[in-house]
């Protein structure tokens, strides 16, 4: 403490405190947002179910069982459908790095054709939701206005009002939708991966899903008033920034205003007169 006491009034102390604050904010922000992996998978190829079965038994069966019947570690995939396989594998969540309640988006280790093959094999086991056509997920054919209302009512609680993601219970989180492709968004709604509820076609018809996709893709190109997006997570970041940044800045200004000056400053004559 005496080391700090001896130095806290130096002119450089204010700048040092500011720098320290900025570094801490940058580190916290970086640790919260760093997430690797880019993935993209095309849709439309014809699945080869035999090849898909071979791939499945080589890479998936250790957890899901040789006939996809499920094990104590992972659920049965009979009836899961091609859409679920497509979502999980095209976002790099499967094959999972470890067994847990939640898998993060990661690098994709399979080609689009291989994913199609495995999806075709799983679909052949017991039906389930299929991968949508390109037209079903075309954002230009959707109505972002209707999509906004649907998104606000059913998605924004977890994914944030602009799809920036958010926290769930017990350390889980809803991922940001910034890199999800229209087909991935569609298949996620259709199958309800992990903690996400299912929005199947009875509750949300395909056109409604397309409206939601149109809204999500529209938010990505919206300009940021003021120039900074702040992660688009809403009042939380804005409050954090103004609290740490704005309030801290005002404190530093106050320190500077009342700091002791080091340069020559006249007293003497007027001081003695005032007495």
């Amino acid at each position, binding site marked *: 403490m005496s080391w700090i006491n001896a130095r806290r009034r130096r002119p450089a102390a204010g700048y040092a405190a500011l720098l320290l604050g900025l570094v801490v904010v940058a580190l916290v922000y970086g640790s919260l947002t760093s997430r690797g992996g880019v993935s993209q998978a095309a849709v439309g190829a014809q699945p080869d179910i035999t090849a898909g079965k071979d791939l499945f038994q080589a890479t998936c069966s250790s957890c899901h069982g040789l006939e996809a019947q499920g094990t104590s570690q992972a659920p049965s995939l009979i009836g899961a459908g091609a859409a679920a396989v497509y979502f999980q594998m095209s976002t790099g969540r499967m094959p999972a790095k470890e067994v847990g309640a939640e898998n993060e988006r990661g690098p994709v280790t399979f080609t689009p054709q291989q994913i199609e093959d495995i999806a075709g094999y799983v679909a052949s086991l017991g039906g389930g939701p299929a991968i949508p056509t390109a037209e079903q997920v075309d954002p230009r054919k959707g109505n972002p206005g209707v999509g906004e209302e649907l998104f606000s*009512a059913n998605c924004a609680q977890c994914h944030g009002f602009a799809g920036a993601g*958010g926290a769930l219970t017990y350390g889980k989180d809803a991922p940001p939708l910034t890199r999800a492709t229209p087909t991935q968004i569609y298949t996620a709604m259709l199958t309800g991966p992990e903690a996400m*509820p299912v929005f199947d076609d*009875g*509750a949300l018809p395909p056109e409604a899903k397309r409206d939601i996709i149109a809204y999500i893709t529209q938010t990505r190109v919206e300009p940021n008033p003021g120039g900074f997006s702040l992660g688009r997570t809403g009042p939380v970041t804005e409050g954090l920034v103004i609290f740490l940044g704005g309030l801290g800045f005002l404190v530093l200004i106050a320190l500077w205003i009342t700091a*002791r*000056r080091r340069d020559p400053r006249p*007293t003497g004559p007027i*001081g003695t007169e005032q007495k």
Partner: protein
Amino acid sequence: MSDMEETEGAEAPVAPHRVIGTPPPSPRLLGSTAVAEPDAEAAAAVADGGEAVPEHVVGLPLDDPRVVEHGKRAERVVAACFTLAFFTGCGFVAAYVGLGVHTVDKTLRSNLALGLSLSLTLVLLGLGALIWVRHLMPDIEMTEERHDLRSDDKDRQTFEQTFKQGAGYSQFVKRPLIRRTLMLGTLPLLAAPVVLLRDLGPQPGTSLRHTVWSPGRRLLVQGINRPITPAQFNAPGSMITIVPEGYEDDADALTKAAVILIKFEPGQLQVPTRHAGGTLIGTMNWTVDNIVAYSKICTHVGCPVALYEQTTHHILCPCHQSTFDATTGATVIFGPAPRPLPQLPLAVDSSGYLVSRSDFTQPVGPSFWERG
């Protein structure tokens, strides 16, 4: 600056003043400052090391060449700040007059220009004033005497006399008719606030206890406003936000009537129980085909709760982390919510669509003291 320089006797050291409310300086410090050491940094370091109130250090005389040179530089910086403030202030006026606001883009640009120019003007004025105070005004400690709040007896007597004299001249005491009619005339003004405040009503009455849900009212999917059948809502793990038919766009009604619909696997849903008038009642017959409907309004402070995890069957309120277990009648398992989310009794109408069996049987939203 020029009139300051005329003063003489600059070398006389000033004894340290003690500010009221501060501890007395230690004897060691008194000795060190009495030397009138012009090096302020050294004195400050001694004061800091001693953990005492820093003493007032006597600076250089006004006519010292270093002070004069420093003052000239500071004067130029202050003048530059004020001049820049003039230009940014002109920029504010120009932006207000010149930039249109009739589209979103134009308004954004106008707001940016107005905010930037006005804040720059104010910051530059403040900065100039600060540099002025810190670098030009001499560093003088002054002591101001404190006076008693009570006036002295002579002043009080004079005031009393003046008051009585005025009262006599006005004949306020002598003429009761005027005095009483004046009081009568101001009486309605005193009553006016009562009337005005009363008109802030009407009182909520029993409106907090009811929503627009009524027997046979269809459940519509919010956004696409379509009724839904149990067969359409048949994927376990599904969740959707529901609005009452006829009130799809009535924001006032929806603030209380919004509902979330959740579908379970057979056997997952345990018998939800409710207290009604002190007795425990089962509400399994309020569900249809493992579909259950809960109020979307949190019972804590009324945030919308729709953060539903299909793996854990938890409904989480994003405002204060109240967590409800959807399988057991939305009982509170964590957080500040005082009671479960009210459950909407469901039925199926003759066309096969999901409808409400009745209104909620208890008030929705934040709990209030007469809830019953």
